[in-house]
């Protein structure tokens, strides 16, 4: 299927979801504010720590803020545009994937468009503001190339985040409980990447750079943008990791799908 057609179908199905939530979600603003509040509190906490110490392992306040905000900015984009991954367990356990399998549209695409997480908008806005501020306060020398690479890293970060979400939630094909905790556990691991990986021991570093490559969302892009010596070049792996995560996530999802049993008989 052509990419333009995929994008078109995504837009069509997404617009329908948007209409539905505008009609039924009366808690729109509550969702929006609660998500934003959580992130603002975290940010204030970070600020309090940095009032006591000038830097952590050579990382300054705004640099860590950037990493911190990248984690929940990507989470925000994930919930806003790919919230359906979080509904996968419900779709599988209630047999609602049947309906998707009957349509000539890629299943992953239909899963993505299963819902819209309005709370993502809060994360997106607060995350955007903090990233913006951290870039302003860090005296970066911008060039066309640097802007382009920063955008590439941002896109890679989103792809990595969504891929990990999809893998975590694909556990639903193996773990047949309506409320299985595996995807949430995978999701919470992202908290490790809110801080420089140098804070952690070798095991954690390897984990968040390979199996669950959250560090490529926050830490490695930060080493490029803030020009940290000692990590030069590592950021180049980010697009490769993004491609690899997406491919792995797709394969795992497809494999899980062959185990799909629907309901009843």
């Amino acid at each position: 299927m052509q990419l333009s057609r995929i994008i078109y179908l995504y837009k069509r199905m997404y617009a329908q979801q948007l209409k539905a939530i505008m009609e039924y979600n009366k808690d729109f603003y509550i969702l929006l504010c609660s998500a934003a509040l959580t992130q603002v509190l975290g940010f204030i906490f970070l600020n309090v720590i940095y009032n006591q110490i000038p830097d952590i392992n050579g990382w300054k306040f705004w640099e860590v803020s950037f990493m911190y905000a990248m984690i929940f900015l990507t989470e925000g984009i994930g919930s806003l545009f790919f919230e359906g991954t979080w509904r996968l367990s419900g779709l599988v356990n209630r047999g609602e994937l049947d309906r998707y399998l009957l349509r000539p549209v890629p299943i992953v695409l239909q899963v993505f468009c299963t819902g819209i997480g309005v709370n993502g908008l809060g994360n997106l806005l607060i995350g955007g503001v903090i990233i913006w501020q951290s870039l302003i306060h860090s005296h970066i020398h911008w060039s066309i190339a640097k802007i382009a690479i920063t955008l590439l890293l941002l896109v890679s970060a989103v792809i990595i985040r969504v891929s990990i979400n999809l893998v975590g939630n694909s556990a639903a094909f193996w773990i047949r409980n309506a409320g299985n905790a595996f995807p949430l556990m995978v999701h919470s691991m992202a908290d490790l990447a809110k801080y420089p990986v140098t804070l952690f021991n070798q095991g954690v570093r390897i984990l968040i750079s390979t199996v669950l490559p959250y560090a490529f969302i926050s830490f490695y892009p930060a080493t490029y943008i803030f020009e940290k010596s000692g990590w030069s070049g590592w950021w180049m792996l980010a697009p490769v990791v993004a491609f690899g995560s997406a491919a792995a996530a797709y394969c795992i999802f497809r494999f899980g799908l062959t185990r799909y049993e629907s309901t009843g008989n």
Partner: protein
Amino acid sequence: MRIIEARQLTKSFRQAVKEPGLKGAAKHLFAPRYIEKIAVQPLDLTVEAGETVAYLGPNGAGKSTTIKMLTGILTPSSGTISVNGINPYKKRMENAAQIGAVFGQRTQLWWDIPILESFSLLKDIYQIPEAVYKTNMNQFIELLGMSEFIHLSARKLSLGQRMRADLAASLLHNPPILYLDEPTIGLDVSVKQKIREFIKKINQEQQTTVMLTTHDLGDIEDLCKRLIIIDHGAIIYDGSLKDVKSNFARERVVFFQVASPLPALLNQLAQAPDIKLDIQGELEFSLSFDRFEYTASEIVGRVMKHGEVVDFRMEDANIEQVIKTVYDGNLDLKHSRPQEGA
């Protein structure tokens, strides 16, 4: 032309074996045990293009599992399927584009958006040309009487309305094959009638191949020429509806209205072991008999010998009774051959 072809198709599910109580649950947590539950045994199935086939069986016989494999929802455990030359689980999207499916228990429509918008979304999904879409919409709205609810969202519809909308949705792209899984479940008589007429019309006008499962035998008599009965995951009968009727629907009932009471005859008939007498009133009664044992004229003649018959009418056993006997395990359609009537 063979449009649906399945060879040695099987499906088994893994089922957890849990002992009752908290202890059983704890045991399962640490040492889970599973059994393979066979839903469909090696099954061969062929459907010709343009046919209407009823796929019957008691609850849990494997009907829906078969349909789900044919539609590409489930991956078979073994065996091969070809639907119009396409393997439905390997080329799911290609297959999805050429079939329509309605599952009575569950809607295919978007829950929160108006039916009309669901349809227009389907138009884009199936890439239906504008002209085809318009013609079909006009025809479906009229035939299924949808104009009064087409602007409502699926969640606001009654079951009958929802089912009509689902049926229309499944046929918007003129699929050559239509699967219906209990399409009339829980519907009132008038909606049932509408749906049956609609399916019949589509089958006749577009030569759409229809495969349907149902527990409502009215659906079958109205729609299907061929009958496939499955039980415990295996096909136990495959043949024409007419054959089943003429070979196995043996009971025939004659209702009589007579001019004056006939106590002597009734006494005599009540003694006869293979004729069942049912007295409805002083002057009305009915006799049921095996039509391979007696002919109708024999029975009527016997009554007429005793007195004046004002009126009589005859009823044949319906397919429902035959199927019930099969489900109960009292009739093997494959092996028992009906005795020729004396």
